[in-house]
């Protein structure tokens, strides 16, 4: 009962903070902390280092592995340790590769991390895996910051698998979709939308959310096409969308499909705005998208650390160490380490329940975005809408605010 009242107060505060939140986004660059509510950072003295375990693959470990999480975590750990560590001790950090396809193996990896006495878990980057492992996280009673956006992992969502231990560092995929649709339908004024959805959880859920958002905004879905992850030719889908007269397209596909899809749209003279969320950036990374297609493409990433000023310090450090521009995942991974520092020091130690409680009221300005915990344990509430130059450099068109659902979840 007391908790509920406390939560209500928190929500109101969060709402107020969110309302005037946009101005604070342009404040200091990543790496600095603001004073947290309750507990000062200097009251924490520990005898051993906090154990942080990262759960993600890196390049070479799997068919879908990207290096961003591992790189970001490593950079963050190095930076925090160089500045004195957490609670006066160096962080004990370890990364375990977690399979995004084999749930049984992913579970064992999670359990291994617990066997290694992890105090905090970071990672789980695949939507299906988060859903599958959420009960294990709850059972383990260990604060976990997941790097996925699957809506059902948030507390209070329909069919939620969330818990007080699971926190999401990315905005809800459904709201991300809604933000794009809002821009497409309301700002760009396109009413006849075509949908292209890959036949996987990600595609199916995104398209369902898109459909709902389109209709809520007063548009219509003129055609909905599906494809398999492995498809290398999408001409029939492109022509169907064209023949149905779509004047805007929302695509929830995988990057390799994306490359083919965007090019075939341009080849067949379908010159309409194409929104593709985070996939656009990944597809641009292949360098295979034709200029005619690039100019129609819109992406939405959680943030754009390569070009945003708030991430400039992180950007420079990342490029210096890894020789490439960072992605939003790397920025989030980097921020996660600093978040752990902040909540551990606010909690005065490594007690898991206290850390989880501190996470539930997180207010932190990071390289990627300003993090503010909401009722559903979501930490991030913004994204950036981008267009691209032919060489892949993104331009931020608009920073989009994604407030948490009013009724929780």
């Amino acid at each position, binding site marked *: 009962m007391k908790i509920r009242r406390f939560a209500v107060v928190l929500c109101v505060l969060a709402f107020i903070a969110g309302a005037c939140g946009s101005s604070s986004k342009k404040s200091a660059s990543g790496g600095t902390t603001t004073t947290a509510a309750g507990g000062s950072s200097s009251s924490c003295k520990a005898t051993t280092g906090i154990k942080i375990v990262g759960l993600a693959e890196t390049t*070479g470990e799997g068919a879908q592995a990207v290096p961003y999480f591992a790189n970001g975590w490593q950079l963050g750990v190095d930076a925090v340790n160089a500045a004195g560590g957490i609670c006066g001790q160096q962080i004990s950090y370890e990364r375990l590769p977690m399979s995004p396809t084999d749930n049984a193996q992913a579970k064992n990896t999670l359990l291994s991390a617990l066997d290694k006495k992890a105090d905090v878990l970071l990672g789980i980057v695949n939507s299906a895996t988060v859903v599958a492992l959420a009960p294990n996280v709850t059972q383990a009673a260990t604060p976990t910051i997941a790097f996925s956006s699957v809506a059902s992992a948030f507390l209070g969502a329909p069919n939620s698998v969330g818990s007080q231990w699971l926190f999401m560092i990315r905005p809800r995929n459904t709201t991300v979709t809604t933000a794009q649709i809002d821009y497409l339908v309301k700002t760009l004024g396109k009413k006849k939308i075509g949908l292209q959805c890959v036949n996987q959880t990600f595609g199916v859920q995104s398209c369902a959310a898109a459909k709902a958002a389109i209709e809520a905004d007063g548009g219509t879905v003129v055609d909905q096409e599906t494809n398999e992850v492995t*498809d290398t030719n999408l001409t029939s889908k492109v022509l169907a969308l064209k023949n149905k007269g779509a004047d805007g397209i929302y695509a929830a596909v995988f990057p390799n499909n994306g490359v083919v899809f965007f090019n075939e749209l341009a080849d067949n003279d379908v010159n309409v705005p194409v929104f593709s969320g985070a996939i656009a950036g990944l597809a641009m990374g292949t360098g295979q998208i034709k200029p005619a297609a690039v100019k129609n493409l819109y992406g939405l990433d959680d943030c754009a650390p390569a070009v945003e000023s708030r991430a400039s310090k992180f950007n420079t450090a990342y490029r210096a160490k890894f020789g490439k521009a960072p992605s939003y995942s790397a920025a989030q991974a980097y921020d996660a380490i600093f978040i752990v520092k902040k909540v551990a020091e606010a909690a005065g130690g490594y007690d898991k329940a206290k850390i989880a409680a501190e996470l539930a009221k997180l207010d932190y300005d990071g390289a990627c975005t300003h993090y503010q915990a909401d009722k559903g344990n979501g930490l991030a509430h913004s994204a950036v809408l981008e267009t691209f130059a032919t060489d892949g450099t993104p331009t931020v068109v608009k920073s989009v605010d994604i407030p948490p659902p009013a009724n929780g979840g």
Partner: protein
Amino acid sequence: MVFATATSDFLSYLSAAISEGSITALAALGFLLTFKATGVISFAQGAFITLGAYLAYWTSGKHDWPIVPAYVFAIVAMFFVGVASERIAYRPLRGRSIHVVVIATFGISEIVVTLINIFFGASPQGLDPLVQGGFHVSGAYIPWQRVIIVGVTLVTTAALVWLFGSTQFGRQVRAVASDRETAQLYGVPVGRLSIIAFGLAGSLAGLAGVLIAPVGSIDPNFGFLIMLGGFYAAILGGFGSLGGVVVGGFLIGFVQYVIGSYWWRDYQSLLPFVLILGVIAVSPQGLFGNRNAHGRL
């Protein structure tokens, strides 16, 4: 207006069907070659297709070679990779049952794909086409690369037909394919034949890889599905005749990209499987095979 759209749509589908069918046919020709010469179905063919594409990407993308030398390098290098696979997976296992060799080719496939993963990462990469751009036919856009694919496939098929029909190598392969022991007694150098066959199959795989890669993007697993399509084409074609598998490849392309584009678009990629299951349930020797051929399989 509607008719014009219908024509241009149909032409688009047809061009996709023909080019995808060509790639399938190339993949099938590759392991038909090893099958005829050694009786082995090499499950490493998919990995070789992928490897060929990545070798071209490595030289042209990472080291800035011009396109044509990069492609040629890939195809030639894949010849030696094919020979290596013969030495590793076939030679030490000669005399054992065919299953054992096939399983060993799985092992090779796993190794190759993982090496690609480690060296190049799993994110999709791109390979530049031989000729950029395309042209329009009745409103349908046809990329030049697709035309090149079809052309190269036809030339390759013709070359293989000539090779099998008119050269000594081809005669020897046919002899070995029909009765290995007798051919050996007649002095056919079966060992050398295996090496060349595996090498050529590797090159064919590399060729398929570099041709299809520019149409989309490449990732470490894209060759596996092409190989699967090649299996289906070979089955349809009856695993005996070159012409049969080429027709099989085009048939699969037609079913998936023309028929599938008009009906059952959502299940388009399922249609080749259904076709295959239907064909082998009714006629196990495929559409063009001979009755006795499937005994060995």
